[in-house]
């Protein structure tokens, strides 16, 4: 069981979502975030106010899935989020020690491998 976290450009959201859904994953957590990567753009003045453009808006997607599903999910995210330009984002995978569904209250089963499409949220 692993957690995939992807930070992508906002306009790639629809493409990434439908691609991930196609492989049977419907549960995910999506947040509107800002951040910066290796690329850096100078601050800009707009309407007389200086804005720090080094923090750019991105979407963060989090999905928990079985080890077997992970490669396909990552592949779908990467191919659909890619525009080939700077700032396309990152995807990383970390192991998940345990997961409990709040509704099911299955505390005894914290070590059991969840079924496909389980959500982090």
């Amino acid at each position: 069981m692993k957690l995939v976290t992807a930070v992508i450009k906002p306009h790639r959201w629809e493409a990434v979502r439908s691609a991930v859904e196609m492989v049977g994953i419907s549960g995910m957590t999506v947040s509107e975030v800002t951040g910066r990567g290796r690329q850096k753009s100078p601050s800009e003045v707009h309407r007389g106010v200086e804005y720090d453009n080094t923090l750019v808006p991105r979407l963060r997607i989090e999905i928990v899935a079985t080890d077997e599903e992970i490669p396909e999910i990552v592949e779908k995210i990467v191919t659909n989020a890619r525009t080939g330009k700077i700032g396309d984002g990152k995807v990383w995978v970390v192991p998940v020690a345990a997961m409990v569904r709040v509704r099911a209250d299955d505390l005894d089963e914290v070590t059991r491998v969840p079924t496909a499409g389980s959500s982090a949220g």
Partner: protein
Amino acid sequence: MTASDRLARTRAADALCGGALEQTLAGADESGVALVAVGGYGRSELAPFSDLDVVLVHADDVDVHELAANVWYPMWDSGANLDHAVRALSEATEAAKSDARVALGLLDARHLAGDPSLTLQLRASLLAQWRRDARRQLPVIRELVSARGLRLGELAHAAVPDIKESMGGLRDATVLKALVATWLVDVPHADLERCRQQLLDVRDVVHELAGRATDRIAPELWPELALRLGQPDADAAQRYVREIGRRITHLSRLTWRRVDGVLERPQSSRRRGPDLRPVAPGVAVSAGEVVLDRGTVPSVDPLLMLRAAAEAAERDQVLSPPTVARLVRDGAELPLPWGLEARNLFTRLLAAGPGLLGVWETLDETGALARILPEWERVRLLPHASVVHRFTVDRHLVETCIEASRLIRRVARADVLMVAAVLHDIGKGGVVDHSVAGEPVAAVVADRMGFPADEVRLVQDLVRWHLLLAEVATTRDLDDPATLEYVASRVRDTETLQLLEVLTESDALATSPKAWTSWRAGLVRDLCQRVGRVLGPPDGAWLTAGGNGAVAAAGTTMEVGEVGEVEVPAALRANPGLVDVDVEALADGARVTVISGDRVGLMAAMAGALAVLHTSVRAARAWTQEEFAVSVWHIDDQHLDGAILRQRLEAVLDGRIVPAERLRRSRRTALEPSVQVRYDASTQATVLEVRMDDRPGVVHLVLSALAAQNLSVRSAHVTTLGPQAVDVFYVQEYGAGVLADDRAAAAVHAVRRALTGAVTLDV
């Protein structure tokens, strides 16, 4: 679901409660003990699942402990939802005194059983106390009412309204009745009672449908509710219920304003007769309400309605409903198309800020809006399809105007912005995309308002593309030049882009705070920056012709234009220290030519003299001819006396009158002025653009600040576009051209300092 059902339920409950006491007393002496119904039960308005609020009242010297327990048991056993209390008479009055909520509940006390004289005594003492303590209690109740309104929203607009607790619901109607009981204010009783009974009917049905005591109308309840209320469909049912809520909100808001007026006046200083204070032509303020001035004939001045509305909204005061009703009945129709002044008044109204809400509601309730903006009917109380929205469509449009009014300094055309803000969702309610459906409607409205063709086009574009920036920013690749081209091809120029950006922000803020997060704001800002670079800087011509263009199209052009050489009078040649003033009346104002020996500050002095005379400047132009300074001014006063003007001008030049001393701080909480250098506008002079509220004295303040910097002003173009004056000054060094960067920065700083704090001539 009728009053008779409620009465039957009340009778059954009365029999139960009364029987319980009578059975307990079992023929014993009942003096000093009474069972009373309070709250909704006291008013005999029981809904199917209402609580029975009862109080066992006893005289202070009677012990009822044992009796009380025996009374409640049979009532509990019957399964009734009992909400009970035991109070001595003195305790009841004391509790009502210290807690306004208790006082409100006890005002409706109704005798059920026991000693009737005790109930009578309770009612009499509570009512007397209520009237005596009204001035202390009312501010507390007002706080409770507004806190509840903020928490639960308005019955008329909330997505899931609460018939009882939402603003404009049953509780507000009850509070209104309590306000009337203070004898300080009055309300239209028949109107209020009708609304109350209709809401009670709705509540009965909601209880029956839900099968429990709930007052919230969940979205899925509307179709069934429509059926039971005899309405054709869910939308019609919504309109029916929300209309009642709006009426009660309107009455409530109006009554509270009147309470404020009463509380503000000291008790002793009641004057006989109306106290009218004129605030604008034909418009006065009386007891905190905007009314018609003494002797005003509604049928003569077609602008009265708009003027009164704009004044009331800007002052955040009540626009008196009887005044509006009279104007609707007897007022002159607006000319078609509207003139510039009507447009300015209307856009001032829209940009008035929070004061717009109450005034707009009054215009709507009195039928005035149907005359000013008949298209409003399309969206009146129309529910939004999306749950993101806090309000119905009409209220959302008003809220968008209120949000936009805070951002007008960011655009040159505040008037166009406000009209687009009030119309942007006018196309909702059909099957076609609302921005497509709204575009032709907006064109009809803008055309009727007399906007020139290119500005009608601008209003249309803003309505058509009001979703463009938000949609593109979140769904398209901003790094792709095609995306920027896509937006640029629709927006066409930088001015439109700036207007659209402000409209997008206002629209989102009015929708809900969630719709304008810093994340979304960042995306839209990024898109606007990029598209702005594609479109290039604002067109310089806009600065001088943009505003004047609007004036010219309305047929009231005051363009100074090329005046050419003027003849210098012989007396002035002999003594260049003299000032020659010539006033020439025009169709809608006057042209004043001032010639004098050249000196620093002459234009500032002239602007000051005009400000002292309460005369508005529309445009001015200055040049030197031989050793003389010539300036030509276009002013809006057709009957200005040249001799008086010269006298004032000389007094200002001699220092006998200091206009700045006559300028007081504006009473309005004005937005900060915006002062910018427009580098692209001219190669001959440095162009300063000042955006601020239109108030007499502004031109004088700017010109004085520039004179103090030893700068020469070649021309001033003063334009009022609804709520905002856009004044453009062509500034030069004496005997030289454009200002160096540091001098330009110093000039901007000096002008901004002179204007900040909204120091204006308060008329």
